[in-house]
C-alpha cells in the first residue's frame, strides 16, 4: 500500500472522536420526614438506576431525631440487591436519646450496585424503652404514632423531623433525559401488617420517585417528580382518617376529586392554595424548596413532605416540580419504543416493507405487567388501519426488537409504535414514522434499485433534453450516489454485529471503559500532598498530549506501516 494512503488512513482514524470517562459525585437520594411507630419493624428505601449502569454507595446516613423519651433506638442497616443477596449488613448501632441523634454507615469498600439491581437500604429501628420513636414534620404530624395521631391533627415533635435517610454515592454523570430512580417503602414485614394509618392497617405500600435529568443539566441534577408507581399506593378507605379539613383548592388536581392515590405536589402551589391546620403552608412559606406528597380521597387532601430541610450546597439536586398533567405524561416514561425501520421519509421500491421496532421496559418498580406492545401502520391520507402487530408484554424480556416484512400496497403510511394497557389506551410515548411505498417499473424491469429521494436532492429533475450539463449531473448521481436503502441495510447489520462475538466483546469492553467513573471511591489515596492540584492537574494535559503523540508514532510505525489491505 502506498505510504500516502497509509497516512490518509492513519489521519482518518486517528482524528476520529475518542471517548472519555467523566463523572461527578452524586448525592443519590435523601428521604426526610416520615414516621416510625413502635409497631413498625423497619423502614426501607429503595432505588434502582436506568442510567448509569452502576453506582457505588459510599454512605448511608441514618439520623434519628427522637423526642425525649422516644430515642435510645437501635439501628441497623442492610443493603440488599433486591434478589436476596445482601451487599451490606451493619452491626446494630445505638442512637442516644434526644433530638439530633444519629449515625451513619460508611461503606468501605463501596457497595457497587448494578443497573439491574433493586436496592434496598433498610434500617431497622427498635425503640429501647418501648415508647414511640416519634415523627415528623414542620408543625404537622403526618405519619406518627402514640400521642401523635396519624393524620389526626395533633402535631408532634415541635416541628422536628425524626427520621432521615440519606444515601450517598458516586456515579457517572447522567446525561440529559436519563432517568434515575429511587424510592422508599414502608414495610410491614416480617410477620404481620403492623403499619397503621390512623388505626387502619395498611398493606405494604410502595412508592418511588425518579429524577429526570433536564436537557440543560450542568452542575445540578434536577427534577424531583413525586411519582407513585403503584396505581393506588395509598388507598384511604376510612373517611375519618382523612377528615383533616384541608381544602387545597388546587386547580391542577380538582379533576381528581373522588380518585384515590398518592400524588406529589409542589411547595409553591401548596403555599398559595392550601389553607387550614397549618399543614404544609408553613413549610412552603419558610422558603424550603420542598416536594410534597399529596394523598387524596374524595374531597380531601393530605400531605406529608419528604424533604423538610433547606437544600445545602452539598445537595446537587435542583428540585423541579411537575403539574399532574406532566406527571401523567411521565408516568410511563419507563417504557421506550422506537421505530428503527423504516426511517422517516423512506421510499421503498417494493411492496415488501421491512419493519424493525424496538420496545424497552426500563428497570423500575412498576410491577404492572398487564400491557401490550404494539405497532400499527395507517394510511397517511385517510388514517385507515392497514396493518397491526401486537404482543402481550413478557416481563422477562426488557428489551426486544420486532422485525418482519409486511406486504403493503402502493401509498404513503405512518407507522406508530407504543405500549398500551388492557383497555387499549396508549400508556407510553408514541413513535411515529412516515414512509411511502412506491414501486417503479425501472427496478422491476432492470432489477436495479432506483435512485431514492436523497439522490434526487442532488439530481436536477427538470433538465431539458439538450441541457448536457444537467443531464450529465443526473447521470453521475444515478451512477455513483448510493441509495439510502443500501446504507440502511448496513445500519441494520451493524445493530446485529455489535452484539455477537468477537465484535460483541469489543463493544462490551468499550461500553465498560466508558462507564468507568473517575470520582468513585478510590482504592487508596496518595494523601494530602502540598500543591497537588496545582502540580498534577496541569500536568494531566501535558501528559495526555505526550501519550497521544507517542501512540500516534507507535501506531503509524508498528501498525499502519505493516497493515495489509
Amino acid at each position, binding site marked *: 500500500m502506498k505510504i500516502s494512503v497509509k497516512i490518509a488512513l492513519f489521519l482518518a482514524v486517528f482524528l476520529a472522536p*475518542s471517548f472519555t470517562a467523566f463523572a461527578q459525585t452524586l448525592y443519590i437520594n435523601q428521604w426526610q420526614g416520615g414516621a416510625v411507630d413502635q409497631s413498625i419493624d423497619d423502614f426501607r428505601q429503595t432505588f434502582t438506576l436506568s442510567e448509569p449502569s452502576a453506582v457505588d454507595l459510599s454512605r448511608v446516613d441514618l439520623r434519628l431525631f427522637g423526642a425525649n423519651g422516644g430515642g435510645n433506638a437501635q439501628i441497623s442497616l442492610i443493603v440488599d440487591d433486591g434478589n436476596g443477596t445482601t451487599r451490606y449488613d451493619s452491626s446494630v448501632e445505638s442512637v442516644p436519646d434526644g433530638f439530633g441523634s444519629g449515625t451513619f454507615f460508611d461503606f468501605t469498600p463501596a457497595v457497587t450496585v448494578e443497573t439491574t439491581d433493586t436496592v434496598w437500604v433498610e434500617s431497622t429501628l427498635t425503640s429501647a424503652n418501648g415508647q414511640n420513636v416519634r415523627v415528623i414534620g414542620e408543625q404537622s404530624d403526618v405519619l406518627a404514632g402514640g400521642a401523635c395521631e396519624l393524620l389526626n391533627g395533633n402535631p408532634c415533635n415541635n416541628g422536628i423531623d425524626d427520621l432521615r435517610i440519606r444515601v450517598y454515592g458516586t456515579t457517572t454523570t447522567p446525561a440529559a433525559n436519563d432517568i434515575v430512580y429511587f424510592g422508599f417503602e414502608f414495610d410491614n414485614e416480617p410477620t404481620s401488617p403492623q403499619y397503621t394509618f390512623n388505626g387502619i392497617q395498611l398493606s405494604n405500600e410502595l412508592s418511588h420517585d425518579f429524577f429526570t435529568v433536564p436537557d440543560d443539566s450542568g452542575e445540578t441534577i434536577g427534577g424531583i417528580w413525586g411519582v407513585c408507581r403503584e396505581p393506588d399506593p395509598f388507598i384511604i378507605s376510612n373517611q375519618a382518617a382523612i377528615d383533616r379539613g384541608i381544602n387545597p383548592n388546587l386547580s391542577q388536581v380538582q379533576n381528581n376529586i373522588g380518585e384515590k392515590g398518592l400524588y406529589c405536589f409542589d411547595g409553591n402551589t401548596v403555599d398559595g392554595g392550601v389553607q387550614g391546620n397549618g399543614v404544609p403552608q408553613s413549610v412552603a412559606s419558610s422558603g424550603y424548596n420542598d416536594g410534597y406528597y399529596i394523598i387524596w380521597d374524595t374531597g380531601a387532601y393530605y400531605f406529608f413532605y419528604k424533604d423538610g430541610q433547606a437544600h445545602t450546597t452539598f445537595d446537587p439536586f435542583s428540585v423541579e416540580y411537575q403539574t399532574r398533567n406532566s406527571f401523567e405524561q411521565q408516568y410511563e416514561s419507563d417504557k421506550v419504543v422506537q421505530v428503527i425501520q423504516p426511517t422517516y421519509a423512506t421510499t421503498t421500491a417494493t411492496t415488501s416493507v421491512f419493519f424493525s421496532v424496538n420496545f424497552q421496559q426500563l428497570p423500575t418498580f412498576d410491577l404492572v405487567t398487564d400491557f401490550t406492545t404494539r405497532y400499527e401502520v395507517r394510511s397517511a391520507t385517510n388514517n385507515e388501519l392497514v396493518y397491526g402487530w401486537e404482543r402481550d408484554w413478557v416481563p422477562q424480556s426488557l428489551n426486544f426488537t420486532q422485525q418482519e416484512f409486511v406486504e403493503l400496497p402502493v401509498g404513503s403510511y405512518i407507522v406508530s409504535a407504543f405500549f398500551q394497557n388492557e383497555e387499549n389506551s396508549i400508556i407510553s410515548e408514541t413513535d411515529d414514522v412516515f414512509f411511502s411505498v412506491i414501486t417503479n417499473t425501472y427496478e422491476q424491469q432492470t432489477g436495479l434499485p432506483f435512485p431514492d429521494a436523497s439522490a434526487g436532492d442532488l439530481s436536477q429533475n427538470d433538465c431539458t433534453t439538450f441541457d448536457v450539463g444537467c443531464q450529465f449531473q443526473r447521470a453521475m448521481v444515478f451512477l455513483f450516489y448510493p441509495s439510502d436503502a443500501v446504507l440502511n441495510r448496513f445500519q441494520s447489520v451493524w445493530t446485529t454485529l455489535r452484539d*455477537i462475538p468477537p465484535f460483541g466483546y469489543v463493544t462490551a469492553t468499550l461500553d*465498560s471503559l466508558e462507564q468507568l467513573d473517575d470520582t468513585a471511591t478510590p482504592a487508596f*489515596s496518595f494523601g494530602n500532598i502540598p500543591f*497537588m492540584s496545582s502540580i498534577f492537574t496541569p500536568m494531566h494535559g501535558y*501528559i495526555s498530549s505526550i501519550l497521544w503523540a507517542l501512540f500516534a508514532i507507535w501506531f503509524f510505525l508498528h501498525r499502519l506501516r505493516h*497493515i495489509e489491505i
Partner: protein
Amino acid sequence: MITTALLNVIYVFVVAIVSLLRGFGEVSQENAITTAIAAIQPYYVSLATIFPVGTLLSIVGFVLVFEGFYLLYKLIKWSYSKVPGIN
C-alpha cells in the same frame, strides 16, 4: 447505480459472515471482561489523581475499535477470496 451495486456486493458478504457469527450467540454485557474492568475502577480513581488514566483507556478503546474494523475487513476479504473464479 455503480456505488450501490458495489455496496450491495459487500453487503452480501457481510451478511454471509454475520449469519455465520450469529451461531455463536450474543455476548453478555456482564461477562468476565466487563467485570474485570469494573473491578479496576477503585485503582483507576486512585491513579487518576496523578496520571491521566482516562487517556490510556481512550487509546485502548481506539485500538480496539481499529482492530475490530480491521478484523471485519479481513473477514470480508477472506470470504470474497473464497468465491469461485476470484483469486
